[in-house]
């Protein structure tokens, strides 16, 4: 589905965002992209929509055309106030499908809002919503475009525990290729069977999430750690083996 080879990108001020990223993601996989601040996670995400263009190769479902990429890959940005810019929730969710000129916009808006349990808020203005609600609507704005791949940037940032849990539950019901960019390791453990560890613009580890999170020295070397008292072995015991395509790892 996603195929990146030797992806490199440097910002105009000389900061290196990506330093040769190789990543392959199969259809239906759920992959967490983990890494400390400044590792290049968001830069990678922007590449998936051709909002930034570096050197190297990047295709999604065989294409690298900007317009096609934006239809295939739905980005949910970290700050929902950036993502929700229309006067009402309904118009915001309709924005993508209207740009795609699909015929069944209304039905798509309904379906997307129902999927994130925000149907009753369709006629509210975004500024009247709580952060958790805004984030759910932000996901709906992308779901309405029916992308093949959903990419979320720090979906759990600044949420209280209950809102965070509800968001995870919502995400669990979404059946698509999922890329979660985060440094919330328990979230990755809960949602994704595979994780990719990004550090200083490179993929430094790629494998089953639970194995990767159990490797404390590796996490520590890249400024990541599990929350104090977090018991990974409990997750190991309760983890239900999902029948998804096996990860095809490709390290640096």
């Amino acid at each position: 589905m996603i195929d990146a080879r030797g992806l490199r990108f440097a910002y105009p001020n000389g900061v290196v965002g990506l330093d040769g990223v190789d990543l392959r993601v199969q259809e239906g996989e759920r992959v967490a992209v983990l890494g400390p601040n400044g590792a290049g996670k968001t830069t990678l995400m922007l590449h998936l929509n051709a909002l930034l263009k570096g050197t190297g190769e990047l295709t999604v479902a065989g294409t690298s055309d900007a317009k096609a990429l934006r239809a295939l890959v739905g980005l949910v940005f970290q700050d929902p106030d950036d993502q929700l810019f229309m006067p009402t929730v309904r118009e915001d969710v309709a924005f993508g499908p209207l740009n795609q000129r699909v015929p069944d916009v209304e039905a798509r808006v309904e379906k997307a809002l129902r999927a994130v349990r925000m149907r009753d808020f369709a006629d509210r203005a975004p500024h009247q919503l709580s952060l958790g609600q805004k984030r759910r609507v932000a996901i709906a704005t992308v779901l309405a475009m029916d992308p093949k791949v959903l990419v979320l940037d720090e979906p759990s940032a600044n949420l209280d525990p209950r809102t965070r849990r509800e968001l995870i539950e919502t995400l669990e019901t979404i059946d698509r290729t999922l890329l979660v960019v985060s440094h919330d390791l328990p979230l990755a453990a809960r949602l994704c069977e595979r994780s990719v560890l990004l550090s200083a613009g490179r993929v430094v580890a790629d494998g089953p999430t639970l194995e990767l999170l159990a490797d404390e020295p590796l996490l520590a070397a890249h400024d990541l750690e599990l929350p104090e008292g977090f018991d990974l072995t409990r997750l190991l015991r309760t983890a239900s083996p999902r029948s998804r395509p096996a990860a095809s790892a490709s390290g640096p």
Partner: protein
Amino acid sequence: MSSLRESGVVGDSAIHRLDPRAKLVGLLAVTVIAVSSAAWPVHAACAVALLLVAAAARIGPRVIVRRARLILLPVLLVALFARTAFPPVAAKATIGTVSAVLLGATTSFPDVLHALERLKVPRLLVLIAAFMYRYLFTIVDEVQRMRAALTARGYAPRHALQVQAIGRVATALFLRTYERAERVHLAMLARGFDERMPRLHAPAFRRADALFLTALAPLLAVRVVA
């Protein structure tokens, strides 16, 4: 900032459910007619028309006064300097303000935007107004957080020189807003934005809307005769 929260639609009535274009055109016409004439019968007729609209929309005097005073007090203060011309200037100002208040109390801001767009107001202007409405609240929240941060560290300006902190806040706010604009633009591109603002559904102009505008037509006659 409570004045900002004190906005939006109040109640529901036949007037509320009119096509926003009809309300925008109708109430704007009342204002233009009042402003273009100095004759008191015209002003009286306009006032009666606004009272009737308010009554039909069931907007009480309290709402109107509370909202109108924000604009009206400073305007009337300025009009005082006109001395002999005070009565007509004050009448024009009051009629214009009350028209705007009635529009605001019966029509949501997004609806006003749709109306402007459908009335072929330049798209760029409508877009600017839409973004201003959307981000006004976000920016006000940011200002309040910054002010709280200043106060928390003991900032209480006593003389003019200490005001420079405010300048820094303004700069920071400008930069933050600029960065946000860039991020919003990225988010728009990600969802296929191509310089055109798409529209979900267009309300139809119905008989009630035509009736509303026809009911206001006698004002025009008064203006011509007076």
